């Protein structure tokens, strides 16, 4: 697939959208900066190193920790279901709902469920799935997909939300955010009480205790996982961490990197169904461990660091490209720099070949990544893989030829000097048509120098002294 040039152009020239993205991401940037500063968190860099080390170790011993997790979840009376694909996960839920006579379920925010088009799969079988995170709920009503990992409706402002509520809920137009929240809350409270199943994601799966950890700010995840009789958590296999004490590292980093909060408002530790002497909690608990391509990523020792991601969204907030094009112009639910590195690995580098190139390689993403994924390095690696795919397919041969020619010139100084004296060593890279036109579409072209530095130096040394 080619880059969605028209849509990108539309996003850039939409002042309302630009303002929404720039303001929201700007707020996240500012918030994060305040809570990871040397004064606020002296150990920040040490925590990042520790987080990276734990993730690296766990991903390299994933089989061991998944088995440990499984036996501890079962010891609490929970069930573990391994799902190879999104279809398998959806089928399991559909089957269970049918057996228990459930017609409606509530969901707390889960990118993993977005990834597998969970709601659509369920709705195709008349099982209603209601999103309870405010942003996700707005998007569900508006029939849109998330444009940001942690702030799914970041592209909408309160006037957009007012329109959505009026159209979909039949309420009077309300533009005050607190009142909009109240409207959503009124609808959702009833859904929590009616739902037969609550579905959540999981931020961390603790192998040594069998608990799952869900962080959130709205309390909807806590309600989704405690009111309905059945709780189903869907999580990627990479979410496992060895020990509960590792959370000291990750919880300290996640909220700070994501929203600029030292800790999110709610951190729920959920270990299995309600025990006999307990008042709250579901009767049944299922943990769906999803592969959906993740094991493919384990194969490459360098690229597998993509699986360290804790989905904080900091790389999106700090990415100057994301901040211009927004989340919807990325081909998958994971947008921004993390999307640019994982999408080709999940879907194949021959798909959406433009994606690894949609970056100025500024490195802002790697600088803020709490688990230190070297995103620019992986982008470069993926670019090389795309070039290799194109070589094999024999496509984009003009660009390849241009760089072969450029390399030949750059390794033959005499040719380089000859072309330099004619005014352009760059001619293979920026021929008078195409690329140069694209450059000039945005900017005035630099005047070629009358004399190259090479020529200046030559004329200088031929003079007796100085020559300035």
């Amino acid at each position, binding site marked *: 697939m080619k880059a969605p040039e028209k849509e990108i152009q539309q996003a850039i020239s939409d002042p309302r959208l630009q303002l929404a993205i720039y303001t929201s991401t700007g707020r996240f940037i500012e918030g994060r900066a305040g809570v990871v500063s040397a004064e606020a968190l002296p150990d920040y860099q040490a925590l990042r190193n520790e987080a990276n080390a734990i993730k690296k170790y766990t991903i390299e011993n994933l089989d061991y920790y998944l088995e440990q997790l499984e036996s501890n979840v079962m010891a609490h009376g929970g069930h573990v279901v391994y799902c190879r694909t999104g279809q398998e996960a959806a089928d399991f839920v559909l089957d269970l709902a049918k057996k228990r006579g459930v017609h409606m379920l509530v969901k707390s925010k889960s990118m993993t469920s977005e990834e597998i088009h969970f709601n659509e799969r369920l709705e195709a079988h008349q099982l209603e799935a209601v999103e309870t995170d405010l942003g996700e709920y707005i998007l569900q009503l508006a029939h849109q997909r998330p444009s940001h990992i942690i702030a799914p409706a970041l592209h909408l402002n309160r006037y957009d939300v007012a329109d959505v509520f009026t159209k979909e809920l039949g309420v009077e137009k309300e533009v005050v955010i607190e009142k909009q929240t109240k409207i959503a809350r009124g609808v959702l409270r009833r859904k929590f009480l009616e739902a037969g199943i609550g579905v959540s994601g999981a931020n961390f799966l603790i192998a040594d205790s069998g608990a799952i950890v869900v962080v959130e700010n709205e309390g909807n995840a806590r309600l989704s996982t405690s009111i309905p009789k059945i709780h189903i958590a869907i999580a990627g296999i990479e979410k496992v961490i060895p020990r509960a004490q590792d959370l000291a590292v990750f919880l300290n980093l996640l909220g700070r990197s994501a929203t600029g909060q030292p800790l999110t408002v709610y951190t729920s530790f959920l270990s299995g169904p309600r025990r006999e002497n307990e008042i709250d909690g579901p009767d049944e608990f299922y943990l769906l461990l999803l592969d959906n391509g993740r094991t493919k990523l384990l194969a490459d020792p360098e690229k597998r660091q993509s699986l360290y991601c804790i989905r904080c969204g900091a790389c999106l907030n700090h990415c100057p490209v994301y901040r211009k094009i927004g989340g919807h112009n990325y081909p998958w639910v994971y947008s921004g720099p993390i999307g640019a590195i994982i999408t080709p690995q999940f879907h194949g580098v021959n798909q959406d070949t433009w994606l690894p190139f949609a970056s100025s390689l500024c490195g802002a993403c790697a600088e803020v990544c709490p688990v230190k994924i070297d995103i620019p390095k992986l982008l470069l690696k993926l670019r090389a893989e795309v070039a290799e795919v194109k070589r094999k397919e024999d496509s984009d041969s003009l660009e*390849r030829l241009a760089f072969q020619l*450029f*390399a030949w010139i750059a390794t033959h100084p005499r040719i380089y000097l000859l072309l330099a004296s004619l005014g352009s060593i760059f001619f293979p890279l920026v021929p008078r048509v195409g690329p140069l036109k694209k450059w000039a579409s945005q900017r005035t072209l630099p005047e070629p120098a009358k*004399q190259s*530095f*090479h020529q200046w130096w030559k004329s200088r040394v031929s003079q007796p002294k100085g020559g300035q």
Partner: protein
Amino acid sequence: MSSRVSLFVTCIVDQLFPQVGIASTQVLERLGYQVHFPAAQTCCGQPAFNTGYTDEARKIARHFLNVFRASEYIIVPSGSCTSMITHHFADRFEHDPKLLAEVHALEPRVWEFSRFLLEVAGVEDVGARFNGVVTYHDSCHALRELRIKAGPRKLLAKVQGLTLAEMAAAEECCGFGGTFSIKFPEVSGAMARTKIDSIQKTGATAIVSIDSSCLMQLQGVIDRAGLPIRTLHLAEVLASR
């Protein structure tokens, strides 16, 4: 210690901004260095590398190794090209121990221009004079790969007549990104315009940086908009009297 230094001007400076190479030479000579310019030099190979053409990048890197084999100090008036050599050459030769050893021997000999002045020559005041308000643009590879942030500002602080006005978005990318600027011209242009908005708020009449490629991008957008701002490489400011 040798007072002889080699200059790698980079292909962009050679072809489009020779005045930056000339200014670098002047500053170094005024400090008493004997500047050597290996005539067989061409490019660091970054355009090929960043576009995914690693074989081509490797060939150019080998050429660079040959040209600068005998140089003790290699001075580069670009953070981005310095970083290409010191941070990305090695991976090109991971399966060639002999050349890899050569690269590792090369890395500590390569110096970005401002860092050389501060850390090797040991000067902050090069005796320059420049009248005006300028703002400094942190180029991404210098900032995030070479960790250059305070150095150029120290040098600018000692320039007589110069006032440094910091912009809010100093660390934001200018949007150049090599072939990114051609593959995604609209995004690249929009990034530059955001940067320039931030620059305009400072009241500066010139943008200073240690990378000519960023300045080419910014100047291109400035000229298109007809704004009264010019772009200058740090070496040009330091060479002014």
